[in-house]
């Protein structure tokens, strides 16, 4: 890495070398049985330079071939965006715990046992269900050095446990599923299994809804599948800078219900999204995004922040080997005061949405979402009565979250990137074939 930096400094004003290496072991179960054991080693190096004021960029998996890496970066710098930012000088980073050495020492046999146990519990409840499961352990190492002397490196461990089941009756297919992830080993399959059993219980009976606006409770999984993508896009500093975010010019204004609080937080110990610094070496911080329904801040990387005349929030992330861009690390929605039971009790006719399929396809920028209720239940006179099918809901998150009936007192992690309670909204358009 130092070699590459030295070479790059000869042809550019500034340079930064980013290296990521990872080792990952997924153990996969198909049709209730162990199917696949994988082990994946991966490493890549990205070089970003500033040459004649412009950004050049190249990546490679071959560290020995640094001359062609530098040449590629120089070629792209002819056309690159003018650099408005300065690379971070040496700095200190917050202590963020994200590595547990115990993850690496979990044996493949133990991972097989966990998967088998998970499937056995679910099939013990519903023998006809066909399950796929995955147990994964992994370690990622990041190292960044730049021409201003800035340097950062950290390690992160990840362990995840997930199951999906399908239960077929004639041509009706019921999908259930749950997953959990952490930087610690998850050696208990019980919580994940229980969540699936709960879904199976609620979905035992079928129920019909009519096509009309109805009150809706989004479970934490439902919030993740229906509402989060438009929020992530709207709070992205880049969307704001372009003027394409509907809330871009509403900083400090009441856009959402007063009960809603949202922040981005990469500093929580042992969460999969946690890290001491972002992919540019900017220290991690907790950034409030919605406070009492008011727009509080947006997420920035170095370049976007410089263009917007603000500071990076430590949200520069590199996806698929690309240049850093603003991206959330972990979205946290604060709990409210209402229990799920109280929400359900409050509804005469309505829906509980656990999984909305295809919600990310509409006009996300405008906040529209629309999708098929892949897993959801009907509420009738204060009780969940059964699962709905052939049902589609459509709405706009800005209208929906302007007036929230209640926010749940429980919170749950979904997929390691979102912690949220249940959210209960007064009306959402429902179209159903019954």
């Amino acid at each position, binding site marked *: 890495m130092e070699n590459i930096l030295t070479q790059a400094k000869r042809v550019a004003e500034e340079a930064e070398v980013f290296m990521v290496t990872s080792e990952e072991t997924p153990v996969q179960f198909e049709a209730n049985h162990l199917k696949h054991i994988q082990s*994946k080693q991966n490493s890549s190096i990205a070089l970003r330079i500033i040459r004649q004021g412009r950004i050049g960029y190249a990546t490679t998996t071959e560290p020995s071939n640094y001359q062609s890496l530098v040449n590629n970066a120089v070629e792209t710098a002819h056309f690159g*965006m003018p650099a408005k930012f300065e690379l971070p000088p040496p700095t200190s980073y917050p202590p963020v715990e994200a590595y547990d050495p115990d993850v690496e020492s979990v044996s493949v046999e133990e991972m097989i046992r966990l998967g088998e146990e998970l499937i056995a519990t679910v099939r013990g409840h519903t023998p006809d269900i066909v399950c796929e499961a995955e147990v994964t352990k992994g370690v990622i190492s990041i190292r960044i050095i730049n021409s201003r002397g800035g340097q950062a490196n950290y390690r992160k461990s990840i362990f995840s446990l997930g199951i999906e089941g399908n239960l077929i009756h004639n041509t009706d297919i019921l999908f259930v599923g749950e997953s959990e992830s952490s930087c610690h080993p998850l050696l208990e399959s019980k919580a994940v299994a229980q969540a699936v059993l709960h879904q199976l219980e609620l979905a035992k009976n079928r129920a019909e809804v009519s096509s009309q606006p109805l009150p809706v409770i989004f479970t934490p999984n439902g919030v993740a599948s229906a509402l989060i993508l438009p929020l992530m896009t709207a709070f992205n500093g880049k969307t704001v800078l372009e003027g394409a975010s509907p809330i871009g010019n509403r900083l400090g204004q009441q856009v959402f219900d007063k009960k809603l609080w949202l922040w981005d937080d990469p500093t929580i110990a042992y969460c999969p999204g946690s890290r001491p610094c972002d992919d540019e070496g900017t220290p991690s911080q907790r950034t409030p995004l919605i406070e009492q329904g008011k727009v509080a801040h947006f997420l920035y990387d170095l370049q976007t922040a410089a263009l917007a005349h603000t500071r990076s929030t430590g949200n520069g992330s590199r996806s698929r080997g690309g240049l850093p861009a603003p991206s959330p690390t972990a979205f946290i929605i604060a709990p409210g005061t209402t229990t799920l039971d109280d929400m359900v009790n409050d509804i005469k006719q309505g829906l509980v949405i656990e999984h909305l399929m*295809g919600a990310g396809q509409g006009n996300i920028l405008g906040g529209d979402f629309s999708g098929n209720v892949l897993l959801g239940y009907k509420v009738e006179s204060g009780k969940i009565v059964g699962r709905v099918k052939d049902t589609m809901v459509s709405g706009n998150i800005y209208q929906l979250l302007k007036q929230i009936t209640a926010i749940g007192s429980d919170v749950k992690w979904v997929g390691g990137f979102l912690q949220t309670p249940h959210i209960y909204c007064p009306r959402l358009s429902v179209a159903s074939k019954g």
Partner: protein
Amino acid sequence: MPPIEVIGHQLAEALNRYSADYIEARLEQSQTSHITYRGRELESIGRATTIGGNVRAMIRGGWSFVSFNNLSNLPGRVELAVKQAQFAGNKESKLAAVKPVVDTVLSETDKNPVTMPLAEKKQLLDEYNALIWHTPKLQTSIIGYGDSHKKVIFASSSGSYIEQERSDITLRLSAIATEGNEVQQVALSLGSSGDFSSIQGLHQQVEQMARRAVELLSAPQVKGGEYTVVLDPVLAGVFTHEAFGHLSEADFVYENDRLREIMTLGKKFGSSELNIVDSATIAGLRGSYKYDDEGVPATKTYLIREGKLVGRLHSRETAARMKEKPTGNARAINYRYPPIVRMTNTYIEPGSASFDDIIGDTKEGIYAKNWYGGTTSMEMFTFSAGEAYMIRHGKLAEALRPVVLTGNVFVTLNHIDAIGNDLKMNQGGGCGKGEQVPLPVSNGSPHIRIRHCLVGGR
């Protein structure tokens, strides 16, 4: 480092020194370049080179897969793969028999799109972006261009040794219009199997796209409910891919007895006019190849013929377990993933109706055009149109906000009551399954009409 061909032969030799029911290895060397714009300015431009490989082994029906881009200890990787496979297996290994192949396949295009000067690529994107920005009320634009050139070496313990080259190009342009708190966007997705000229000269289409985004600001949203829907070839192609294509991937079916019953060959899915095909053998399409990633020759497979289920897509394992013929549909997005059953170029064969007949014959409905996205859960699917218009009394009427359609595949294919004579293939976008996204595919269809389709709305 020695050339990849030399390492390929070393790896092939290493396979023979270990014992398993089956072992295969892939080595991949790729170059890519990308250019993205957000707004008027170029946002990111870059080049990447990658080299990596994997070993896959099967013992007693269990698979192990080891991927790496450190090529220093190849026998060690093979050894790990074999060791892990011993943990995974607990039944009999079954793979459909295929003849060992030794072959070298060069890229279809003689010009490698990646090595073209970046200045030439940028020039074209600059022209398109200028056109978008020329449109009044336009807020911003997003353009993503990417190309790749790959060489893949495949070797197996049954004696195959195949070198294949392929190129790919994708381009997606979006125009975003705003007024007050309203935001609307329209996108155009294009692609080709390496021929840069296929994304040139689209100035008129790009201009139209930008104008449409502005027009949508004043378009009404449709009321949710059941409609008769006419799909254009692009959207009908996505529908074919999402609603039916994924269900015909045998890995969903082969170990699921209930699903096997539902997907019994001979079962009626649609009218006798309905024919659905997947074929990797059509020259020049993004989903085409000579051999899949298990070294099986590509085929043309009828999935539905005259309305009846007649075939499905297989890997060597699913074919053997279902006692059907392998179809050469095992594909991996890159060396970091094992091959899984995937589509290639999937389409509805043309029927006899003209577009004017189909619209003229529709009293009230929605004409949905252009692709925005789509997803499926085997039974249920949703897909979204980039543009939509009301049809009233056999004529196209006012423009609508983009619509999302949803349905149940077992019902919806039966509700196709008109198939046009104007088949067109769409090369834009890519297919996702599991983590492996986006895989180059194409899909297509003539105009089709579907009765009783559920449309989301206010």
